[in-house]
């Protein structure tokens, strides 16, 4: 009985980890896109290529 409950708990934990990882991935990509959008006006103002600014932001993070 104890073994079964431990296994069930383990399954729940794995599911939670996977869920958390998926959430982190979605958060990472969407946040990254939001960051990229903010770089556009900055790159225009600084007269620097957009991709250079993106790479610079990546390094800074």
């Amino acid at each position: 009985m104890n073994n079964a409950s431990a296994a069930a708990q383990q399954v729940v934990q794995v599911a939670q980890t996977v869920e958390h990882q998926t959430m982190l991935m979605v958060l990472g990509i969407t946040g990254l896109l939001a960051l990229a959008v903010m770089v556009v006006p900055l790159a225009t103002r600084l007269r620097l290529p957009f991709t250079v600014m993106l790479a610079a932001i990546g390094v800074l993070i």
Partner: protein
Amino acid sequence: MHEFVHALNSLEITSEAVFFVFLPALVFESAFAIDVRRLFDDISPILMLAIVGLLISTAVIGFTMAYVTHMPILACLLLGAIVSATDPVAVVAIFKDLGAPQRLAILVEGESLFNDATAIVAFTIISAMMLGQSDPTLFSGIASFVTVFFGGILVGYVTARIICVLLVNIGESNLPKITLTISLAYLSFIIAEHSLHVSGVMAVVTAALVLGSRGRSVITQSTWHGLEEVWEQIGFVANSVIFILVGLKVPSIMAAMSSQQFVWLGVLLLAGFIARFAIIFGLVPVMSKLGWSAQVSTGYRAVMFWGGLRGAVSLALALAVMENDGFSPQIQEFLGVMVTGFVLFTLAINATTVSLVMRAFGLAKLGPADAAIRDRAFSKAMASVSTRVQGSARAMHIGEEQTNQVVKPYEQLIADSAKNVTDNKLSDDDWLLIGLRMVCMNENKAYAKMLDQAEISPDTARSLFGHAADISDSIKSGGLDAYLNQYRGKLGFHWHTKWAMRLQRTFGITSLLAKNLANRFQVLEAECTVLHELNNIVETQLADMLGAKTTDELKAILAQRDLETEQALQALRACYPEYAKALEKRVLQQTAMRLEQSEYKDMLASSLISKEVASSLKEDMSERYQELQQSLSLDLGLDAKTLVSKMDFFQNLDQSVQHDIAKLLKPRLALPGELIFSKGGPPDAMYFISSGAIRIDLDTQTVIIGSGDCFGEMALLYQKPRMASVVSDGFSELLVLHTKDFNQMLSKDPELRKQIETIAEQRSFDNQQDG
């Protein structure tokens, strides 16, 4: 915030993610945005730079680094291949901001697209050699390169053609069509790279180029705009994600950099730039001198040299090495640090200074023709704005004082720009060429509109787009004369029509010829319609920009072209009146359908009907116009029995004799101006004219004979060479009787023999009289 930083750090960029997720999208987006015709104008220098240039650069960097670092030669060659792939993203963005010449952008983008493929192929071959998976010999390297490179092209071409067929048959909606292009990018890449082990990048480049060139004739203009926007969006997202992720990876790789590696990086940068300089300033001019490519100016070459940035592909290849345990840790670290350092240098230094190079060579400025157009456009716009502002002021009851305050600066600008307009240094000939180019652009737009409104089929649209582009290109290469020659050439018959004729004459297959002529019918009809429209556009829209003299000249050129096109169309109409009528009926039906559609649209916009009612009405309309979906087929009427029964010559003969004769006669269509036989030729056949007109060029005169007549009988009767050359004056339906059948027919039917001999004697007598 903490979670977000954690989330960013947890995003691990792998070479697989770059290759299978980002690369197809980035490469497809770049290749799709390229003007395929312009790319092919400069395909020799682009391929030379992308293939030969990249291999030279790989060798120079590889041997230099091996000499300096004492690392294995294959590792150094691998480094050379990785850092020789250029990335145009940053440079193209600068080009857009500064309004760089289109040709320069295409040279830079084209080189980058193809050299990505070359670099990946070279990388795969060298790494396979290093890992002991293939023979490290030059011959096996070259053989693998050719297979992988051209295999990729083949996969991309086939996949794109299949998708083009699906695009035609997938219905009206935009969304499935756009989705299909996304599938095309990834499918072509995965089929090539994963399933067939050929170049995925070349497959994607080819697929995008095929879609870019053929797609316009199978996708409507509105879908095309949607497609461009979606791909621009995909490109933006992919670039944003990849460059930030690359940035995230940099500190961990560069942290391990030693002072010795710093020196090596200096040597690598020096070798890389020297190799690129030698290729751009050595190889390209040599190609121009040999006549293999058009001249590339020093300014362009300087920008190409300095604008050769390195980016995502180089980093992805370095990552692939770092993730592969087959490589020793020493080589992994060496390649990781060197490539990242090289990429960072070009992004930080070259990307930020390439605009200075462009300005130094005056490439950010408009050329004299564009500057003159700008002045006239500005003057025209200011005059229009001033008048309309005054009109608005009156309508809004705004006082005169306020109106004057707003309008006065415009009047000052109009006065200033008038001076610039008169000061322009362009000759009348220059303005005429500018006008012709504007006309060509409008011609292309008019065909796209016709395709959108289903007035022309995709096949016809493809022919028309091709014609318009060739005519437009001819202006660039040879001015007005080339324009005239080009459109006249287009009115003639192309190789595929001639090939279809040969097929009909040899095997009696008429379907291809009928399809060709039906397409010609529709092409000429569409050209005539558009030429009328262009005449109006020149008068109403271009006249202010081009001036009265140029406008008159343009109108005269268009009128002449219209006349010649109309004549070519008349020749077809005379030969196939039934098809001409059916075509005209269809054009009118399509107009009716469009009008009905716009009625419902207006009613919906004015809220007279609801969306549901509009949709039901449209559904009903689609059913009524279902016959418009079927393509019109042209019956060439090349059936011997029918043609014989129509001819007066055989009218007096019995049905059974007519039937026997029809078996011996071979139907043949002659095109306008086609030589049937020339003087002195062998007596191999005689001809009966079922319809059309034939010109016989005798020594002293020219005789025209028409339907019901025959020719070529004298040479057969007297077994002499041909006495005259015979040319078809328009489209002529002929019945050919070969010598063997001629003898057989005359021996069977003495009546017919007598009839033909009488004609021959009469003609012989006439010829002697004239002589």
